[in-house]
């Protein structure tokens, strides 16, 4: 069941899907709705009725879904949503950054970021398996225009292989007139005893279970990535991509397509004799704190590039890295650069320059509490 409302740069995706449905190539119901809020509401309802569901949006559309994003996660419905990352106004802009999905990070969804077009397809397939195992909705995020409007070779798996990988959806709750149930009614602070004498969760216990599901989903994400590798030969048994981290004391952190560009920046730094590596965030929620600690053990300088910012604080990835490293004994200078907002092109050489500029801090010392620097013309 697909329900979506068109918004740039999500449109090529949903147009193609509606063509597939119209042409009979995809056995699905396509519901044209009047808003993104309704799109996700149709998905949550269909999911409760036992259907596998998909929706997609960007920027203002995703923001308009905000209420239902919380609802889908709280109701533990395994909806899969593609967020085609786009900047949010004001001022009006249709180009790429990651503010839209980062602004939804606290809604209880798993968030996976793709670096290229192959990863978008592969991540969507994995997203269903993950979502339907842990009963948490999954947002697959990819950069608008940079990926959404770019063409690159993509291996498309056969239906038979996908069927082997992904069993049919088993709903945990189902709307069925033959067996009427109430779902997600007013649930007050304290637990209550139901008519059968069973002590049922209060609001807080249900929210604890959502957090617990996300905490435990990391293992599932890795296992699903391994299963995917066995069938399709492309490995995703990781929460983040590692490039030359084994000996790197300088680590560049980036998410989405920028994680590919970052490897080119690392090439440039390596040519100059620096031991640079890249940590490309793949799964942002749940945030893989423990794995990250291991990967960053050798690092002395961590330069985090964020295509988003929590205004008044810093980039979202940077905050997470800092919190993961707190008290870990890893004594690294952590620098944050805000880049690429509203589609501003981010070049590998600019990333390499930002790293080079940060090198003296290793000697001079640096307070990780400093606000981020912006790569812009101000």
């Amino acid at each position: 069941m697909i329900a979506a409302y068109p918004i740039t740069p999500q449109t090529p995706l949903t147009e193609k899907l509606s063509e597939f449905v119209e042409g009979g190539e995809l056995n699905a119901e396509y519901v044209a709705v009047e808003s993104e809020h309704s799109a996700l509401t149709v998905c949550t309802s269909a999911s409760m009725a036992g259907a596998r569901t998909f929706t997609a949006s960007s920027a203002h559309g995703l923001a308009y879904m905000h209420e239902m994003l919380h609802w889908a996660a709280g109701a533990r419905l395994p909806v899969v949503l593609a967020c085609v990352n786009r900047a949010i106004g004001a001022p009006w802009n249709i180009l790429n950054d990651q503010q839209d999905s980062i602004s939804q990070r606290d809604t209880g969804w798993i968030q996976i970021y793709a670096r290229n077009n192959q990863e978008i397809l592969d991540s969507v397939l994995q997203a269903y398996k993950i979502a339907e195992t842990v009963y948490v909705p999954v947002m697959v995020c990819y950069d608008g225009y940079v990926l959404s409007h770019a063409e690159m070779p993509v291996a498309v798996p056969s239906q038979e292989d996908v069927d082997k990988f992904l069993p049919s959806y088993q709903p945990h709750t189902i709307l069925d007139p033959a067996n009427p149930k109430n779902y997600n009614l007013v649930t007050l602070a304290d637990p209550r005893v139901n008519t059968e004498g069973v002590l049922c969760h209060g609001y807080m216990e249900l929210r604890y279970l959502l957090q617990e599901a996300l905490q435990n989903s990391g293992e599932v994400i890795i296992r699903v990535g391994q299963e995917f590798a066995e069938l399709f030969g492309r490995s995703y048994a990781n929460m983040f991509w590692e490039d030359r981290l084994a000996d790197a004391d300088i680590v560049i952190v980036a998410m989405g397509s920028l994680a590919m560009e970052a490897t080119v920046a690392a090439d440039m730094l390596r040519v100059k004799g620096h031991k640079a590596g890249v940590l490309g965030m793949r799964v942002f929620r749940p945030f893989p704190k423990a794995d990250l600690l291991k990967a960053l053990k050798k690092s002395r300088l961590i330069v985090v590039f964020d295509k988003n910012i929590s205004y008044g604080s810093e980039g979202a990835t940077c905050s997470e890295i800092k919190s993961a490293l707190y008290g870990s004994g890893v004594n690294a200078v952590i620098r944050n650069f805000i880049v690429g907002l509203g589609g501003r092109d981010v070049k590998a050489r600019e990333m390499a320059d930002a790293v080079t500029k940060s090198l003296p801090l290793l000697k001079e010392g640096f307070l990780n509490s400093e606000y981020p620097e912006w790569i812009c013309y101000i």
Partner: protein
Amino acid sequence: MRTRDCKHICDESSPGIGEAGKTGEWRNSFPMIDQERCTPSRQNKPACFLCWLYCPEAVISKTVPVQINLEYCKGCGICSQVCPVQAITMINEEELHPEEDTQKS
């Protein structure tokens, strides 16, 4: 017993009397049925039952005569609003038990 034992992962309940607790405690007025007016009673056969259909707590029986379970009736008055022959009147609890109310204050 911990709440985990209920095995739910989202809020879930079966529609039924008492699912929202002892709703009778919420009542400050209660529905009184005039059986002389109520259609099923007058005709002595199943009829109408609009109050049964509309009662949000499902505490009105689909019987002749219709009966209301006051343990769970929350006193909302919907039944009296929907009754086409004005057979249900909402009576203030204070009028019925004035001494109780005095004790409370």
